[in-house]
Each structure stands twice: as C-alpha cells, then as structure tokens.
C-alpha cells in the first residue's frame, strides 16, 4: 500500500507540472533562457555565470535555490528550470511507461490467445516471430528501431508519426516486450483449451470469438493484470535508457532519461541536474515493483508470468 501511495503522489505532482510552471515558478521549461536572471535574497543573479575558476571558459548554471518559487533545483546549461523540467519529464516518462505497457499487454494478449487457441500454422508462425524477438537483446533491438525511425518518422500508408512524437518510443518499447507477455499467455491458453469448460463451450456450438472473449480471456486476464505494474517499471527504465542514449524522447521535450543526459556534462559542478531524475526513476520503479509483488501475492499466488522476465 505504501507503494501505491508514493506512486499516486508522484503521478499527481507530475500532472500538476503546467500549473507549477505557469503559476508558481513563472517559467517556460522548454525555451532556452541563456540571458535570463533571477532574484536570490533580493539580489539579481544571472542564470548562467561565467566560469571564474580554472581557465575561465564556459558557463555554469546556478545551483539549487531550495526555494519552490524559482529554480528549486537550479538551472540546466540552457538556463531552464530543472525542477519544472523534472515534473514535465515525469509526465513523459510515466506516459511512455504506462502507454507502452498497455499497448504491449493488449497486443500480446491478442497474439498469445490466438496462437494458443487456434494452434496449427498460425501458432507456428507467431511462435517463431516471438522466438526471434526473444533472442534479440532488448536494447539492441530498441536501438535499431529507434535510430531508423528517428531519422524519418514512421510512414505506413495513411499513418504518419513524426520523428519527434512520443508515440515512437511508446511503439518501439511496446514492440520489443511483446514476446515476454505473449509467450507465457500462449502456454496458458493452450492448457486452458484442454479444460472441460472450454470443451463444453466448443461442444455447445459457441463461436471461437465468443469462447476467446467469454471463457479464455477472463481466465487469462489476472496474470496480465498482475504483471502490469512490473511491466510499467520495466518500460520506464527502458525509456530512460533510450532517452539517455539520445534516441528516446527528443528535445525540446523532456523525460527523466533526457534530463540525466543533460546533467552528464554538469555532473561535478551541478550534480542535482542528474541526481534528481535518477532518484525519481528509482522511487517510481521501487513503488511499482512493490505494488506488483503485492498484487501478485493477492491475485495470482502461482505467478504465471513473473518467472519469465
């Protein structure tokens, strides 16, 4: 329950990001603000200060003010408010994690149920596709897909997704994780199909679609639902890694991964730029994992899916 509480808190503050940025911090976290300044203790301070130490090259952004009304965590190297970006970044990270997990679970359930229920050549074909994706290291597959789609966006017939769209990381992450959900579900469906109540439904002349929807899905759904929080955590971590490699969320949009990447160059001078988003990712993922463990113990003690990932 503690996991759920922390999660709700994080989601809420991230959803309030625009209100915070406009009404409290009065800043636009997506526009660079190199010439900007702010007031600390009544004194006017430039956001980016010329280096005076060492050789004196370059600029250092201001550090944390620990004051929620402006630059709580300081500024990044373009003079943008890191705390406001952190909240906006959380929106992207949570959205991508949740949406890709949802998409992945829906597509994987459909494919897994079809493969397990119908068997034969459909099952053979789908299983081979799952096997290949399964054998392919997740990050390498995601990197290949991202780098190709980022240069051009995705165009299939009338469907057009721009290169900077959040849909691209959602689609890519959902696609690479499909076999991890679909394979166990296929096995589950195959064993359900042998049970008496399904045989009875087939014998009484129900259509295949009806059996899948009314009989098999309700029996397979708990496994997927229990797996969902873990999936969100996993996908969020994948998104942050891709964004860190600069092939996830594209600037000027932010996610926790891109902010860590922004902070890489400021690590020794302004460590909070990189530290804060990492802490957010870790807290969110821990609460999702605890939530997932709790849900598993409550609904699915035999844990059909957990062992697979």
């Amino acid at each position, binding site marked *: 329950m503690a996991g759920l509480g922390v999660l709700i808190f994080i989601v809420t503050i991230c959803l309030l990001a625009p209100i915070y940025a406009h009404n409290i911090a009065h800043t636009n976290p997506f526009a660079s603000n190199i010439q900007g300044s702010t007031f600390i203790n009544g004194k006017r301070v430039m956001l980016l200060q010329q280096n005076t130490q060492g050789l004196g090259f370059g600029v250092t952004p201001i550090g944390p003010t620990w004051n929620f009304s402006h630059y709580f965590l300081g500024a990044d190297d373009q003079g943008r408010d890191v705390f406001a970006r952190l909240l906006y970044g959380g929106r992207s990270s949570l959205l991508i994690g949740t949406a890709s997990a949802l998409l992945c679970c829906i597509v994987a359930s459909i494919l897994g149920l079809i493969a397990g229920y119908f068997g034969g050549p459909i099952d053979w074909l789908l299983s*081979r596709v799952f*096997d*290949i994706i399964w*054998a*392919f*290291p*997740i*990050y*390498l597959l995601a*990197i*290949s*897909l991202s*780098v*190709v*789609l*980022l*240069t*051009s*966006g*995705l*165009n*299939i017939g009338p469907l057009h997704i721009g290169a900077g769209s959040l849909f691209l990381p959602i689609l890519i992450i959902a696609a690479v994780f499909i076999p991890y959900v679909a394979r166990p579900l296929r096995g589950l469906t195959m064993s359900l199909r042998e049970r008496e109540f399904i045989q009875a439904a087939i014998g009484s002349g129900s259509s295949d679609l009806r059996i899948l929807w009314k009989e098999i899905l309700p029996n397979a759904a708990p496994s997927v639902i229990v797996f969902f929080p873990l999936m969100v*955590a996993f996908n969020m*971590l994948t998104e*942050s*890694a891709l964004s*860190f*490699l*600069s*092939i996830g969320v594209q600037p000027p949009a932010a996610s926790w*991964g891109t902010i*860590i990447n922004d*902070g*890489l160059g400021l*690590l*020794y001078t302004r*460590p909070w730029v*990189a*530290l804060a*988003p*990492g802490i957010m*990712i*870790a807290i*969110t*993922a*821990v609460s*999702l*994992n*605890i939530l997932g*463990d709790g849900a598993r113990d409550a609904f699915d003690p035999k844990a059909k899916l957990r062992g697979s990932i």
Partner: protein
Amino acid sequence: MLAFVLRRVSSAVLVMFSISVLVFLIFFATPGVDPAARIAGRSATPQIIAQVRHAFGLDRALPIRYGIMMDHLFFKQDLSSYVNIGAKVVPQILQAAPITISLVLGASVLWLLVGIAGGIVAAANRGKFIDPLIMFLGIAAISVPAYWLGEVVNLITQGGLHHSIFSWVPSSGYVSIFQNPFEWGLHLLFPWLTLASLYAGIYARVLRAELVNALNEDYVRTARAKGLSERRILIRHAFRCSLISIVSLFGLDFGALIGGAALLTEVVFGLPGVGLLTYSSLQNLDLPVIMGCVMYGAFFVVLANAVVDIGYAFLDPRVRVA
C-alpha cells in the same frame, strides 16, 4: 551430450540468421525515407548517397541486398562509416570487444558471488531482520537505472572526495590487461561494482525463493532425520539443487547485460568498448557503425546463451533429453 550440443549449436545458427534478416529489414526496408540517405548520414552530398546506393546494391532485389550487406559485414569486413569517412567498422568493433568482455565477465563473477552469498544468508536467517532487508535491496537494485548509478559512483569517487579518500581511484578510461594487469583491475573496479550491484540483488532474491522451496522437500527431511547439521543441509543439499535455476537465469541475464546495462555503463565510465562505440555513433547517427555493433552484439549474445545452455545440460542431465 554430443547430440544436445549439436542441436543447441544448430538452433543458435538459425537464430543468428533470423536476427541478421531482422536487422537487415529494420535498416533497409522500413517504410519512410530512402535507406541510402539514412546510411550516408545527416550531412551527405548527392555523390555520397549515390556511392552508398551502389555499395549496398540498393537498386537490386532484397535478397541480393541482404547478401551484399552480409558480405560487407562478415566476409570482406570492409563496411565503412560515411560520417568519419574511411573509418572501417569491423576492425573498430573487434578492437572494442575485449573491453566489453572484460567488463561483463568481471561483473558477472562479482554478482554471482555476492548474489549467492546474499541468497544463502537470507534463507538461513528467514524471518529475521536481515532477510527482508536483502529482499528489499533486490527490488531497489532493478529499479535504479544502471547508467545513473554509474554517474553517482563517478560523482563520489571523482568529485569532491577524489582528493581525500578516493585519491587511489584512477580517472575513467581503460588499460589493457596485457599492458598492466593491476591497472586493468583498478580501472574496471567501479564499473564492475556498478554492474554487479544491479544483478546481485535479483540473484539473492531468486536463490532465497529456491532455497526456501527446497528446504520443504522430502530429501531435506531425510537429511534432518539423519542428524545432519542445518548448515550442511543448506549448503550441500538445498543449495546444490537451487543452483540449476541460477545457471539458467544467468544465461538470460548475461545476454541482456551485454546488449543493455553494459552498454550504458561503458558510456558513463568512458570505457571504449562496443557500448561506447554504439553511443558515439548514435550521437552522429552513423548508421553503418550502429548496424555493425548491433549485429556483432546480438551474435555474441546468442553464442553466449548457447554456451550457458550447454553448461546447464552438463549440470542437469534431464535437460539433454528435452
């Protein structure tokens, strides 16, 4: 055993072929922009694009193009970058590979040791304070992004404390084991610890669950009835049986690590392995290099998994039949 090895190797070859086709389709047949322009990089002139089109046979049929690409990658090994003109891809990868392998092998030894120790300690002390603590650390370990943990480690060892406690930590980089084995270990120490900490927690969790299951088995009751000590039962009986699931998990994770966390750890610690090569080519969208890294990386993972499976069959004869 021989039949199993042959079957496993042939299936690995089949998987490699499928992966190469998949990579080929992703890079050359994704709908959208002209693959020649994509491969030539962002600032390519029409001449270079024409050159790419010719070099990869982009006006030919798909199966021929696949053959040409495989030829460039594995047989002629002359695939070259169009961003750093003239830089050959395959030699770069082969040069970087030992660094990645040093990183992953060292880390895997560490995480197996720590994970197994943690699992045994947690199982031996179940119900006491230390057990849930180890279990929570396991969850925390998967929840922390690998590259971020590396940055925190850097901040601690290279930042303010570098002039006092951590003055013995070398600046990031790599020294070959043949050049100076001590410096090699010293440079890799923190990358190893970072990578290992991610997985040690998971292994402790899995091993504890297996051990607790095993301790409820009949053979443990028999051992207790014989009057064996609790420690001997845990180590000699329950642990030996639980080791099987650890080995199979290790096969999967080893692969995931090479293609994932190791890549990011190299970037953070400035280790010039395949991961850093991939990262720098991603920064300037140097597609031939990315393609080479992905292909060689995936092949290595498939091979490593096959080796682990064969080791698994060696440990557990039941697997050879299935």
